[in-house]
């Protein structure tokens, strides 16, 4: 199948905005590098979310004003951030105690592939000359209660990223709860991929065609959380 930049589907910011809608008030949230980083900007007014960055900060705020950043106040993507009132700094072992110990409510990550059983592959394509690099991804999926993924529905060459079984090395087995793509919101259930919501201009057949596993049609509770 080919994928020539379809006019349909959500932009990166729209995907982030959609994911932001599902974040409950008062949550402790870790956002992965890339599109997930955009989510913070779209959390609705009146919802207080506390952002954790695994390099040692709870209460992370947005990027600093130009010229006001500190190269030693960064996020996990190594970009400069700010610390909000009520923030706390801590060391790496304490930070991953929060993660591994189940204290972070939800995490939004990028993905290379997600399987219909919720397996996530997001750290390595397994290419022989690639430099293996895992960072904190395996700790996050092993420890955070709810793992959500934001990803383009297909690769640049049009291959499905939602698959029956991941061909890339796993970050963790059976960990993903919900997936936000440019085409749809999809839950991972014991029955596999469950369509929750379609982007404007696409239908089930269109999304199914671009998905590597069966997609259950929208059920009775389309906006249920994971």
């Amino acid at each position, binding site marked *: 199948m080919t994928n020539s930049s379809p006019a349909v589907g959500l932009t990166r910011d729209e995907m982030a905005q959609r994911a932001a809608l599902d974040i409950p008030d008062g949550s402790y949230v870790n956002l992965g590098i890339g599109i997930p980083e955009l989510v913070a900007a779209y959390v609705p007014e009146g919802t207080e979310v506390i952002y954790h960055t695994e390099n040692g900060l709870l209460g992370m705020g947005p990027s600093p004003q130009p010229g006001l950043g500190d190269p030693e106040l960064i996020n996990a993507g190594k970009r400069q951030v700010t610390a909000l009132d009520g923030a706390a700094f801590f060391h790496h072992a304490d930070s991953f105690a929060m993660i591994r110990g189940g204290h972070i409510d939800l995490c939004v990550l990028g993905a290379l592939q997600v399987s219909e059983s919720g397996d996530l592959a997001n750290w390595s394509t397994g290419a022989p000359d690639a430099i293996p690099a895992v960072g904190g991804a395996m700790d996050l999926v*092993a420890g955070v209660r709810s793992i959500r993924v934001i990803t383009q529905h297909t690769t640049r060459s049009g291959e499905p990223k939602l698959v029956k079984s991941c061909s890339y090395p796993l970050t963790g087995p059976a960990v993903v709860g919900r997936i936000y793509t440019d085409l749809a919101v999809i839950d991972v259930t014991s029955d596999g991929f469950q369509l929750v919501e379609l982007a404007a201009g696409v239908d089930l057949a269109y999304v199914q065609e671009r998905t590597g596993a069966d997609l259950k049609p929208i059920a009775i509770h389309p906006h249920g959380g994971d």
Partner: protein
Amino acid sequence: MIDKTHPDAASAVADVFDGATVLIGGFGEAGSPVELIHALIDQGAKDLTVVNNNTGSGEVGLAALIKAGRVAKMVCSYPRTANSTVFPELYRSGKIELELVPQGTLAERIRAGGAGIPAFYTPTSVGTPLEVGKEKRSFGDRDYVLEYGLTGDFALIKAKTADRLGNLVYNKTARNFSPVMAMAAATTIVQAGALVTPGGLDPEAVVTPGIFVDSVVLVPDPEHESVLVERGVSYP
């Protein structure tokens, strides 16, 4: 808006259930959340497993909770101290169970519980009666025992200052077990001597980040256990 404050100790401990495991901060009287414990006595939960370094003194605080018959089992390192008579009497008459844990192992087990570590190896207790029943294993040229992470349904702890997000700082050696207990409990309830708005605590100096805290009650002038014992107070 996140606001973890409660109007009083009674509402903060309202959900403690019969049979719960309750981690109670403090080393002797330092850091003992006396007002929260008294609220728990009033609340009535029973068959509790309580984790504390000691067993309280006199007939106030933890000793009063034990005396009221609410504690089925104590997990601690040093169950006898000056002015500690309640626990020894119940223990000798077989009315309360004791799990004796070396102090450092107790602290590490609680930290492990809070950090998602199910078990770890430690040299402490090897070659002593407390190794009995524990799995042993050698690493390098030394023997170790396997110890398990310890978690609680609730933690009751005392802080010096808190904010509405649950960020905490402590007073001197009143810190002791409280930061790890806050990590290890499903629900952590704090009595704080002062409340400040977020930003009122230096983010570099926060000891317990709010993520580990569920409920905060302002108790501006907490009682000192030793003063109550000296006055002969018996709670309730």
